[in-house]
């Protein structure tokens, strides 16, 4: 579903002629590109989809897999990953005070820094659950969850993230509930990786209890964290 050469040229032209263009203007054209794609039906009118997003990423010089995209989606209160509605997109840009591509590029470091804020990270993390799951589903598919966790905990640096993902694939193999998702962050934040302060009566979700058991079985003694690979 690639944009044809003609469209790309059009964009190039627009950019060279106008220099710094109002982002909304350009993106309107992107919107239009999206709607004229043969794959799309009318329910997607006024939506930016995957292609539009990769173009956008190009413009702001950010990798589509970059976690900053998640933060941006959070600002936009996007409902689902890989799509922005017009309302979400425009509203989000307004909230961020962005009215040009240049401003957008300038704001990226700021947005990135927000991820370091404990409180904001939590909001973004919890937001990610609804954002990443399939529309109409209550739970998050395991593969998607694992991908998200790897992304998020690379940012937040939780030493047990790999163990957690391995554990899930070996023992769980089912979708992830919202409660488990949100409680995992608490767990990562409050329980130290050597499990010295893990409280078995601590009302942790059952899956997390199982995870602790799994760690203990596999040689993490309480008090030491050894690295092992399976």
């Amino acid at each position, binding site marked *: 579903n690639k944009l044809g050469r003609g469209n790309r040229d059009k964009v190039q032209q627009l950019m060279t002629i106008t220099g710094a263009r109002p982002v909304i203007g350009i993106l309107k054209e992107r919107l239009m590109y999206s709607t004229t794609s043969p794959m799309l039906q009318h329910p997607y009118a006024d939506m930016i989809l995957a292609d539009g997003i990769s173009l956008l990423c190009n413009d702001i010089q950010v990798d589509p897999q970059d976690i900053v995209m998640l933060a941006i989606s959070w600002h936009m209160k996007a409902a689902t990953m890989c799509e922005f509605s017009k309302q979400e997109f425009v509203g989000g840009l307004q909230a961020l005070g962005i009215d040009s591509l240049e401003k957008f590029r300038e704001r990226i470091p700021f947005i990135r820094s927000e991820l370091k804020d404990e409180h904001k990270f939590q909001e973004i993390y919890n937001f990610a659950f609804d954002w990443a799951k399939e529309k109409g589903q209550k739970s998050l598919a395991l593969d998607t969850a694992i991908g998200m966790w790897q992304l998020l905990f690379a940012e937040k640096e939780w030493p047990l993230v790999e163990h957690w993902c391995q554990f899930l694939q070996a023992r769980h193999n089912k979708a992830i509930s*919202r*409660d488990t998702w949100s*409680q995992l962050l608490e767990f990562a934040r409050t329980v130290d990786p050597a499990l010295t302060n893990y409280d078995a009566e601590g*009302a942790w*979700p*059952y899956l997390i209890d199982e995870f602790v058991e799994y760690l203990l079985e596999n040689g993490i003694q309480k008090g030491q964290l050894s690295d092992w690979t399976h």
Partner: protein
Amino acid sequence: MNSNSNNSNNQKKRNFQIEAFKHKVVVDPKYPEKTWKILEHAIQEIYNHNASGLSFEELYRNAYNMVLHKFGEKLYTGLVSSMTYHLKEMSKSIETAQGGLFLEELNRKWIDHNKALQMIRDILMYMDRTFIPGNHKTPVHELGLNLWRDNIVHSSKVQTRLLNTLLELILRERTGEVINRGLMRNIIKMLMDLGPLVYQEDFEKPFLEVSADFYRVESQKFIECCDCGDYLKKAERRLNEEIERVSHYLDGKSEAKITSVVEKEMIANHMLRLVHMENSGLVNMLLDDKYEDLGRMYNLFRRVPNGLSTIRDVMTSHLRDTGKQLVTDLERVKDPVEFVQCLLNERDKYDKVISLAFNIDKTFQNALNSSFEFFINLNPRSPEFISLFVDDKLRKGLKGVSEEDVEIVLDKVMMLFRYLHEKDVFEKYYKQHLAKRLLSGKTVSDDAERSLIVKLKTECGYQFTSKLEGMFTDMKTSQDTMQGFYTNHGAELGDSPTLVVQVLTTGSWPTQPTVTCNLPAEMSALCEKFRSYYLGTHTGRRLSWQTNMGTADLKATFGKGQKHELNVSTYQMCVLMLFNNADRLSYKEIEQATEIPSSDLKRCLQSLACVKGKNVLRKEPMSKDIGEEDAFFVNEKFTSKFYKVKIGTVVAQKESEPEKQETRQRVEEDRKPQIEAAIVRIMKSRRVLDHNNIITEVTKQLQSRFLANPGEIKKRIESLIERDFLERDNADRRLYRYLA
């Protein structure tokens, strides 16, 4: 001799005047001495057993005068020295008494002294009442006792000897000799009369010490050579001896003290060794039902601290061990009815011990109950086995038994039931077994069945038994339905086989998967008639035939004309009826015609063709197992002693491994909604509750049915969070909130 009478100068109340003396009263300076001499002499005579020659009145008057004329001090001092002198004389004669005569002499002198003292006191009564209290002197009687004490009992030559003599006599009596108890009593009474301090210091304390030594040595000797029962007998005897000794010649207050000594030396010090004595200790007594010995042990041990708890602890640990062995014994486990009977026997045994020997002590009963609760639940199949036991009893075991005896058996079963942690597992099995009993009509007594249901209801509540009662109702209703059916259609059904239908309400009965089975033509037509009759009167219902649960009676005629009535399962009927139209049928043909699932069909054919005495069919080849290539024939040579031959098996049996797993799984599944319902109930009323408290409350609510697993409760909470019944509190992640 002057006699004075007190002037009535100060008697103002009197109406008459008494004239004063006409002559002057002169007091003789030698008067006090003279008077005292008279009294002194009298005292001496008294002590010399010569009192008969004395005039009481005169002596009294003399004493009286002395006091009156203010010579009380002299009188008193004289009395003291006089008595002392005489007592010292007495002491000499006591001291010189030889051997056994010592006590007798002491006793004699004591009696003498007491007599003398009494007389002296009478004579000196005026002084006793006036001079003595006014001058804070010791009254005469008491003085007499004190002087006796100081001059005799505490004299250096008597004190030790007295004590030793007494102790030696007691020792001799303890070793079996007969001693003069009357004399002992008098001497001890003497010590008692001298005051509690004298009794205690001069006798009781040393007596207790010596006794302690004695019993320490004796108990050591006994324990080395006696077995537990004998030792206890000896200890009991000694205890009784001491009590008797006290009642005969010691102060009653000594009883508690001496028994305490015996208890400590003979029982408390050797308690553990006795209880654990090899081959004769508590465990052996329990095993051999030695009620008398056990009773003795109980009565003795209850006297000492921790005595009963020692017995109780040993009994408990023994019981738990035996029980554990019982329930995990692989051999016993093979026969469920035997298993349960052993449990009941064990309980009866200990019940008897506790009633006969342990004084129906409640703490022991509690120990018994907690032990049973402990080991019954060690075997996860206990609920199933208890149900099988009941099944056996209700099927045949209670046949011909009186109503009271039936109640006794059922009450005992209920006792075991109460110990179960997984009562819901029992319920599941009970339902299955009851269903089979009802459907095969194999219950010994309807009253017994209902009685047990009532007991279960009382124990567990209405919910536990509502479905069971539903089963009974269905049976009754079906009877009425059948009557209605035959009343309405009786005429046209004249030739058809007799049909008996039980209509079971789904939900009350254990669930069975519906299976395929083609009924023979005669039956299917009849069944259809019933179906339309029933649905005619009960619109909106759906009927499905449970062909895996029915039975049939077939009249069969074999090769040589042998006639038999065969009682078979529905499946077996379907198979056999095929042979009305064919002599030979292959497995595949049978399978095709009946459409019975293969595992059931194989089992069915096996019971028809491979069981000795029941082989109404013949199979080629004659192998033990059913193969898909086998061919079947009617066994024309079939014989049986009985006219009626029963082939179907609908009897409840111990489950096979896979069946057991399945039942267990179903129980676990059933528990989930119950746990959730409990959580919702609790949260609805509390609104907000923390994690640990939810777990506690839920466990408590479900206790009467099963022990809820905290992990499972947690999972249910999470499920309820998923479904938006609950949420976690924002601030405190351990708190849950109910979402209306």
